């Protein structure tokens, strides 16, 4: 019996992989899959399917993923990812994901940032929702067979561990308030750290980050926490940032500032080859500087042809018109970068094993595949493939763990509400230190302010430590790389071409830098 925490893309994919191998698992999540952040994904999923006659290859997908991530990802893991991508997307199509197709029936691919070939398979601009519907149905087939035991409305409390081996997990039924201790190894697929930046991200509030903070407090190593992706094009809507998918630029949208009444397309002027589709870290930084020096930045989609709006971007147009009194077909939309994705997370190797035995992590909560900057379309791929890989690795423990859910009736200090405003306070401190453009002084003053924070409850305490780990990781990396740009250290230095690893030990957060594995020669370890 294997315990999977989280029922987004990564959790569903892990459950399906185990079930297909006849291994039983529990799929535990705060909410049903329909409510997971994965349903928000819009633009698409990458695979070098080469259906557009451009001669794309998995090797090129590998190279661009490594380059986009500023060479901070594990090359063997990335190689396995990009090699498997065509099979992953073909499998999803078989499960009924209504991908857009070419007249010959093959999947249509669109351009996405940081990629010179069309490589992103999509279902209009609701790709995540479409994949989630199909995967949820497929997993249901195995629920009916008793191989997947669903526990929705159950939240993670803590790992059961002696500090070396993870032997299970404590969860709480949020409907009844009952705690259960479950035995068996654990795959964490808990999503990103959005809740550390409340109201400031494009993601969901369910991913509060408290689960990750608890896992960190239990001694599990985390990696690359300073690598926070700001998506170039977001808009403020009530209570959050709303994404305008990169698909808008992939299909012809252009970034501009207005000068003397005329649009100036600054990305195209500065980066003639990839223009508006440079990797996200670069685009967000350019927008940051343009807004600082030249005024508002707009996404000009007025040149996108009518049939593209109709067949590829209909949901996007509807969404923009819903939140703005303007039609993107006719008027440029004012945009700003917003926090969108966490490249860092639980430190895992290419097999998705965490530093604690018996614990695996996949999807956005793990550090894998994206290095210092994620390419659009690689995250859904990483979540699905990561879930598969974690499940295969964890299956060596298939025989251990039991089906019993033993009721725990002792104290659980982690089970309490956060005091009013505590999340916002932490979020504002972190935002000050971890913006698009950073420097040592602002990070240090953020750390000082963090030190002053008084914590009344156990969840606040663990959250504060993971927040500290983010700031210390950023301070320790005295260079600029990918999403981590420091005004006071603007160059990329070979000395820092290593993974930032952080751990809470003996009450202290420590940051070290660990060597990235060498690339295996041969054809990669296709899982």
């Amino acid at each position, binding site marked *: 019996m294997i315990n999977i925490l989280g029922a987004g893309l990564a959790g569903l994919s892990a459950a399906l992989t185990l079930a297909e191998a006849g291994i039983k698992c529990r799929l535990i999540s705060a909410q049903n899959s329909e409510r997971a952040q994965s349903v928000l994904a819009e633009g698409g999923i990458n695979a070098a399917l080469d259906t557009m006659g451009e001669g794309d290859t998995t090797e090129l997908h590998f190279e661009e993923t490594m380059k986009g991530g500023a060479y901070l990802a594990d090359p063997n893991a990335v190689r396995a990812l990009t090699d498997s991508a065509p099979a992953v997307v073909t499998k999803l199509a078989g499960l*009924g994901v*209504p991908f857009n197709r070419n007249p010959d029936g093959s999947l249509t691919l669109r351009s996405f940032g940081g990629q010179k070939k069309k490589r992103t398979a999509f279902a209009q601009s609701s790709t995540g929702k479409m994949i989630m519907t199909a995967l949820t149905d497929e997993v249901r087939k195995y629920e009916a067979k008793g191989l997947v035991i*669903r526990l929705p409305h159950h939240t993670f409390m803590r790992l059961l561990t002696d500090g070396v081996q993870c032997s299970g997990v404590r969860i709480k039924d949020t409907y009844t308030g009952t705690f259960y201790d479950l035995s068996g190894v654990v795959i964490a697929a808990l999503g990103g750290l959005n809740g550390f930046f409340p109201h400031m991200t494009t993601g969901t509030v369910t991913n509060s980050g408290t689960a990750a903070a608890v896992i960190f407090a239990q001694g599990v190593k985390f990696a690359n926490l300073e690598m926070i992706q700001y998506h170039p094009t977001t808009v403020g809507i009530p209570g*959050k940032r709303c994404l305008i998918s990169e698909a808008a630029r992939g299909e012809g949208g252009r970034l501009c500032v207005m000068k003397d009444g005329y649009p100036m397309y600054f990305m195209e002027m500065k980066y003639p080859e990839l223009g508006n589709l440079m990797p996200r870290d670069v685009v967000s930084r350019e927008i940051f500087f343009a807004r600082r020096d030249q005024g508002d930045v707009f996404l000009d989609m007025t040149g996108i042809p009518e049939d593209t709006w109709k067949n590829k971007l209909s949901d996007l147009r509807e969404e923009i018109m819903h939140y703005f009194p303007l039609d993107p077909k006719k008027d440029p939309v004012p945009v700003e970068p917003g926090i969108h994705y966490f490249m860092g997370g639980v430190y895992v190797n290419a097999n998705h094993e965490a530093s604690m035995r018996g614990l695996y992590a996949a999807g956005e909560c793990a550090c894998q595949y994206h290095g210092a900057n994620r390419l659009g379309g690689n995250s859904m791929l990483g979540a699905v493939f990561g879930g598969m890989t974690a499940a295969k690795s964890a299956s060596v423990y298939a025989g251990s763990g039991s089906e019993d859910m033993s009721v725990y009736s002792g104290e659980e200090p982690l089970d309490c509400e956060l005091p009013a405003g505590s999340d916002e306070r932490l979020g504002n401190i972190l935002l000050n230190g971890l913006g698009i453009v950073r420097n040592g002084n602002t990070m240090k003053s953020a750390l000082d302010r963090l030190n002053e924070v008084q914590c009344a409850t156990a969840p606040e305490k663990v959250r504060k430590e993971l927040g500290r780990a983010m700031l210390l990781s950023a301070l320790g990396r005295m260079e600029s790389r990918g999403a981590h740009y420091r005004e006071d250290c603007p160059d990329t230095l070979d000395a820092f071409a290593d993974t930032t690893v952080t751990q809470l030990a003996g009450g202290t957060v420590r940051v070290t830098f660990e060597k990235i594995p060498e690339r295996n020669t041969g054809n990669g370890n296709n899982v």
Partner: protein
Amino acid sequence: MEITFDILRRKSADEKPYIQTVTIERGRCATVAEALDIINTEKLIDDPVQWERSCKQKKCGACAMLIYGRPRLACDARLDEFPRGRIKLEPLKKFPCVRDLMVDRGVIFANLMKLGSWLDENAACDDTGVAYDASKCLQCGCCLEVCPNFYSGGEFFGASALTASSRLIGETPAELGKRLYGEYNGHFFRGCGKSLSCKDICPAGIDTERLMVRSNAAAVWKRKKRS
């Protein structure tokens, strides 16, 4: 200008509900969801209101509740739609209440299980876009709330199962569709009164009528082409 919420509250399903009234500055929030967030995070009332939410952009279905008597998504209910300045918030009534505005929609998923909502074979490409429209379903339950024929525990599963069925039927060649057609007939077609209240209310804008027409053609009138 202020806006007042009358919130139907109870600590558990067995408790007698009562109304708690909270007033909040209009300019501070744009939607019901945002207002509830402020009420809770700023502790405008002692005991936070329990409600379900996730995406805050009408894409996950979590926050469905009765707003001024209508089942809607709280994150999609703009306060400027309510110039009178007083809004009643209640939990959906067709599902058991867990606490306050939070209900247990487990029956929706239990019904999808009974319906056998999965493909038996790899999907065949569907060129009508039915799968796309149907896959948008949030499983929020708003359609069930207004459906005259749906009740929890009954054999008629309502529009949230129509969407699931329609996707599967749309993607399955006629010669392999027998099981799906049977489930569709038994759990949807026979019980549906075609009032189309579901179409009017659906926050995902799903054209349930179109899905019915396509699925009826295949499952009831056997007009789907064999592959």
